[in-house]
């Protein structure tokens, strides 16, 4: 479904942020990407829908090479949902309008059809009663659930999550992870950048560990948590798991 082949990316021509990335994500797979801050994990998933360009290598979604200049990137993005750390809901639109905007503008759905789909998704994320509210009146957790519904309204083949719970108060993290877990169980192909190791352990099929722009570990959650191969991965795990046990 998603394939990276020898991808390299630099910032300002000198800072090498992604180094020789090759990986494949199969349809229906849930892949968690973790690593210390500055390791390039957010950059990695942003290259998939070309929010970040790459200088070398190829990135494919299905049979479309997304970093080919001849590819219409807007058609690719229709099929790739993206959830941001800071939600990025449109503050001037109601919850319902946030979700129906892209289906109506991009897929030319009628308002009635787009609203019907939006309400079905709002029921799924437990926020049907907030359809007429504005983002500023929602809690962080509610905003993020709306953002997930907004992404799903385009009926994407892949959903990408860029630290979806990092900006949330602790008591709201659970409600967002629950929505993501339901989504994973419904068979969605997902790549999730997160520090939520509980989610990785329970929901992920695979865990990638990135450090300094390199994929150091690419393995099952089981193997990653019990027997990491690299020192830096062990170090990282010690840091993120410590608060949970202590």
């Amino acid at each position, binding site marked *: 479904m998603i394939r990276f082949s020898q991808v390299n990316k630099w910032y300002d021509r000198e800072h090498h942020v992604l180094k020789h990335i090759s990986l494949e994500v199969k349809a229906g797979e849930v892949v968690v990407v973790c690593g210390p801050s500055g390791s390039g994990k957010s950059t990695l998933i942003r290259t998939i*829908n070309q*929010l970040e360009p790459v200088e070398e290598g190829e990135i494919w979604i299905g049979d479309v090479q997304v970093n080919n200049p001849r590819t219409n990137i*807007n*058609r*690719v*993005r*229709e099929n*790739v*949902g*993206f959830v*941001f750390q*800071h939600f*990025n*809901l*449109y*503050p*001037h639109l109601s919850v319902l309008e946030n979700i129906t*905007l*892209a289906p109506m*503008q*991009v897929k030319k759905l009628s308002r009635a059809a787009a609203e019907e789909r939006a309400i079905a998704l709002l029921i799924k994320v437990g926020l049907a009663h907030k359809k007429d*509210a*504005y*983002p*500023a*009146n929602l809690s962080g957790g509610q905003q993020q659930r709306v*953002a997930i519904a*907004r*992404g799903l309204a*385009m009926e994407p083949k892949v959903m990408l999550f860029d630290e979806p719970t990092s900006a949330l108060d602790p008591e709201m993290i659970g409600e967002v992870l629950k929505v993501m877990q339901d989504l994973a169980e419904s068979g969605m192909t997902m790549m999730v950048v997160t520090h939520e190791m509980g989610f990785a352990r329970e929901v992920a099929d695979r865990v990638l560990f990135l450090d300094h722009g390199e994929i150091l570990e690419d393995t099952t959650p089981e193997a990653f948590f019990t027997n990491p191969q690299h020192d830096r991965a062990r170090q990282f795990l010690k840091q993120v798991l410590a608060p949970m046990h202590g």
Partner: protein
Amino acid sequence: MNYNWDWRVFFKPTGIGNEIYLDWFVTGLGWTIALALSAWVIALLLGSLLGVMRTLPGRYAARIAGAYVELFRNVPLLVQLFVWYFIVPDWLPEPLEDWFKQDLHPAISAFISVTICLGLFTAARVCEQVRTGIQALPRGQAMAAYALGLSLPQVYRQVLLPQAFRIIIPPLTSEFLNVFKNSSVASLIGLMELLAQTKQTAEFTANLFEAFTLATLIYFTLNMGLMLFMRWVEKRVRVPGLIALGGK
């Protein structure tokens, strides 16, 4: 100061037709409003386009709009008006030049010159407001829209501009009022708008103080009304639950 105020002057006949002096003020006010509104339409449309150009990813559009702003902002309005009225018509192709200088009613040709001049001058200022409004939005707004497959025009039309315009209503209001005030330069090329009618009344009647007091009151009331109207607009489009957009 020993001055005999005589407010009845406005109801005295001018000696031209059946007009009283107050009629001149009404006519003048009509020209002022027509001028300012036409110029504002040009300023708002062109200024928005230029403001968007200044924020586009490509370099050329931004540079063209930047050069426009520098040119129109750094030359005094009055100089620009003389250029549009006295010089530009000479550059027109001959049939057009003859039409403009001879066939058109002098008031209409002056009106066209001032409208273009004031519209283009104010567009440079509106451009900067629009640019500021767009740049004040968090980067994530455009990114989220692109990520959903919206095209660049859709991102501007649906996501960036509706938010940017809400932010800039207060500075835009002051540009809107400036257009009305600046329209008084038209009196210098003989268009009988409010200020020109005031001066004419003063000369005809020698009631200088009354004439300018009335003009002051009219300008003040007009602009006050516009300001209240814009406040009402601002309230109407306010996003529920949001005090100030942007910044985050």
